[in-house]
């Protein structure tokens, strides 16, 4: 009754399109290097198209097998592949990305040719020529979109995953790329409506606020928006939905981690020791940014008499250590080795503050379904935040953890349907399941 020719879905049928996809991405990289060496200045339009088309085509062709396969999450071979299991390829990609960040931040002149390839787009969107940050923003957005398509293919059996990925793609493209560019075109301050203090720390620094207020009504609205989001919307949304409303639905850092970083999510450290380090680090950063902000305001209130010339030093220091080194070089560059949420987990002050809300005052939890856990470990393995989800699930306890960004992958990969992200009454969210017979 079942003849062999009917056999559908060979799991590695995607091999050819993966070869073509990665070749095109490599071609894009090659074009970028040639452009950086100077060709980008003379033939910017050509190289712009080459790079963009190669990346897009490569990414989509690479993703085709995910869409052709029978829906259902398949993590086959992830621990065997040198690309995803901290092998040679992973180290190569890690060095490449780390190196790119170092050059971008401190030696942008090496990228001059590449920056020029973005001029055509930059002029259309912003009415000015490109700079290193526009180049970065374009590549960043491209990565989120292309790898977002891959993500949707892989996880398309799960609607939560699809919707949240469309959401981060939307916010990255619209709020973190197009709107700030259009604002510049309209001679308004370049403002990111999807970033708030303390992640975008300078939005509550006196200098930025002064500047925004002086730039007219839109600027005043931006200050107002920043204050509302930080002090009113954030607590309310986090109370109702947990920190996921931001970290895995809106935030640009989260967007990159969830899309470009998805192949590496299993590399986060799940040890108790890592959790201890994480708590110290992320909360120190929060204290650091809060202190910096307070000092700057005090200084501005006292007309610069406290910090004097050193007034900017504090914020520069924070900007260098946290804004550049941590969130960029380590946070993204180390994806292939340390997992996709290094920055979010160890360094992001926004994650820290949302986490405190989530842990102590929120309706959000990951519910464990009775005694159904078989301790297999898929949930912990694929938790990008390094939470040992299984430790809770096998005890029948709900997972209420400050660091959980609510990506929902633990629930999606659970082979027994044990975990579910829920916003229920605050009461009882720490209660664990006990059998009637044991009560």
């Amino acid at each position, binding site marked *: 009754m079942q003849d062999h020719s009917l056999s559908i879905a060979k799991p590695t049928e995607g091999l050819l399109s993966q070869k073509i996809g990665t070749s095109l991405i490599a071609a894009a990289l090659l074009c970028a290097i040639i452009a950086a060496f100077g060709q980008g200045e003379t033939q910017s339009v050509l190289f712009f198209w080459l790079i963009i088309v190669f990346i897009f085509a490569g990414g989509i062709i690479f993703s085709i097998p995910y869409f052709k396969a029978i829906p259902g999450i398949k993590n086959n071979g992830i621990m065997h592949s040198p690309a995803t299991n901290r092998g040679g390829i992973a180290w190569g990609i890690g060095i490449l990305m780390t190196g790119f960040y170092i050059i971008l931040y401190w030696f942008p002149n090496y990228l001059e040719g590449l920056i020029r390839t973005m001029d055509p787009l930059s002029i259309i969107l912003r009415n000015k020529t490109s700079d290193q940050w526009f180049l970065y923003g374009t590549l960043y957005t491209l990565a989120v979109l292309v790898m977002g398509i891959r993500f949707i293919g892989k996880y398309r059996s799960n609607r939560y995953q699809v919707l949240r990925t469309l959401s981060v793609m939307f916010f990255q493209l619209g709020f973190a790329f197009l709107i700030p560019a259009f604002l510049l075109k309209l001679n308004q301050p370049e403002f990111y409506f999807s970033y708030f203090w303390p992640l975008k720390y300078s939005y509550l620094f006196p200098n930025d606020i002064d500047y925004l207020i002086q730039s007219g009504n839109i600027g005043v609205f931006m200050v107002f928006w920043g204050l509302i989001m930080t002090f009113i919307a954030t607590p309310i949304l986090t109370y109702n939905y947990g920190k996921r409303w931001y970290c895995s639905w809106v935030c640009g850092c989260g967007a990159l981690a969830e899309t470009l970083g998805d192949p590496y999510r299993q590399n986060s450290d799940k040890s108790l020791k890592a959790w201890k380090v994480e708590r110290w680090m992320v909360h120190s950063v929060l204290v650091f940014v809060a202190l910096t902000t307070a000092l700057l305001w005090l200084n501005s209130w006292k007309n610069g008499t406290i910090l004097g010339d050193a007034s900017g030093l504090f914020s520069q220091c924070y900007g260098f250590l946290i804004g550049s080194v941590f969130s960029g070089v380590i946070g993204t560059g180390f994806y292939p080795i340390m997992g996709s949420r290094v920055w979010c987990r160890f360094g992001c002050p926004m994650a820290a503050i949302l986490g405190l809300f989530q842990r102590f005052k929120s309706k959000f939890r990951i519910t464990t379904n009775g005694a159904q856990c078989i301790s297999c470990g898929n949930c912990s393995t694929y938790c990008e935040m390094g939470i040992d989800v299984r430790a809770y699930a096998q005890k029948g306890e709900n997972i209420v953890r400050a660091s959980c960004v609510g990506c929902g992958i633990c629930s999606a990969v659970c082979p027994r349907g044990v975990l579910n*992200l829920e916003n229920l009454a605050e009461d009882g969210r720490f209660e664990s399941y006990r059998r009637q017979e044991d009560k």
Partner: protein
Amino acid sequence: MNIIIIGNGITGITCARNIRKKNSDATITVISEESKHFYSRTALMYIYMGHMKYENTKPYEDWFWSKNRINLIQATVKHLNTDNKSIQLDDSRILNYDKLVLATGSIPNNFGFPGEDLNGVQALYNLQDLAKMEKNTINISSAVIIGGGLIGIEMAEMLHSRNISVTMLIRENAYWANVLPQEEAQLIGNHLHKHGITLKFNTELKEIQSIDQLSVHSVVTKQNETIDCQFLGITTGVKPNINFLKNSSIEIEKGILVNEFLETNIPDIFAAGDCAQFRFAKTGEAPIEQLWYTGKMQGETLANTICGNKTTYDRGIWFNSAKFFDLEFQTYGKVLPEITHEQESFYWAHENGKISFRANYNRSDRSIIGFNFIGIRFRQVIAEQWIREQKEIEYVIDNLKQGWFDPEFSDAHDKKIAKSFSSNPIN
């Protein structure tokens, strides 16, 4: 108190952990032949498929054991001396105990098929089997699996993930039909077929063939069909691992005989998990339970008894779960493959062929007996509560939403189910 636990599976380890929770002074030693540390046997398939590494399958970090003063010994127990309360290990060490827990688990059934010692023929139970399977499946193209149960399908998925074509020989007329009702069995069978697995029903193995007398080359079924394969998975169930007790004074039958406190016939010796056999099983319950969940519960119950709080093992309301490729399966209460005369069964299936719901209930008072869910996640607390409180089927159908546990934004099927229920003339 000096406690020795033989076996570091879910039963032995749960027992050890719970003893430590209640008693900080006891000396606890866990002996395992298989591995130094406890790992999740249920995750063996994921190691092979590359979803996880062995390290990921350990539910506790390695420091956990010394911190909780649980001594781990990797060795084989050769002999048990009940008279002077000691055991002898394969390295001739002799260990004394005050209380002994036998949690030795299972070994695969073998039926003595001719040729079952050939290379490429194996079962899948432990880490050593997994290593063997790794070796046996290098560069092969086709495999046969006998046995249409849970391990069989796991093995099929494992092999499939490496592009090895799989034929399953199943004795029954549908997949897992000795456990599942026909509709579910067929739904799962169709799903397997979609994934390219060939299922041969009403088919049994007759002979394993080899050309070089070393490795399997093909199998012959009882219908005299020859199927080429370089790998033969034997997944025809397991039996208690009790060979080392054969000449001891411990009473054994199929498993180690225990009473409701998990006590054997010898004082201070207990047995729990896959290796234990209840002398007087309750009606409708199997004398030997070979499940992760029951092993865990038995280990916990036994820890109570050993720590002085004598506790009866109570299986509670039956539940189980599985995953067949992409299909998740949950069951609560007792759903038999065929209902009895006193029962009614309501079945609903989604048109996509991947989701189904079944509720069995008593014809007389319409009280709910049990559920099968495929492709639907359902809350255990709700299902248990309804079964315990003998809710009427109408109440259950009307309130299905309460138990829904699917991820947010998933389609809820409760309304469709309710509509189908009310339009069903039998009900």
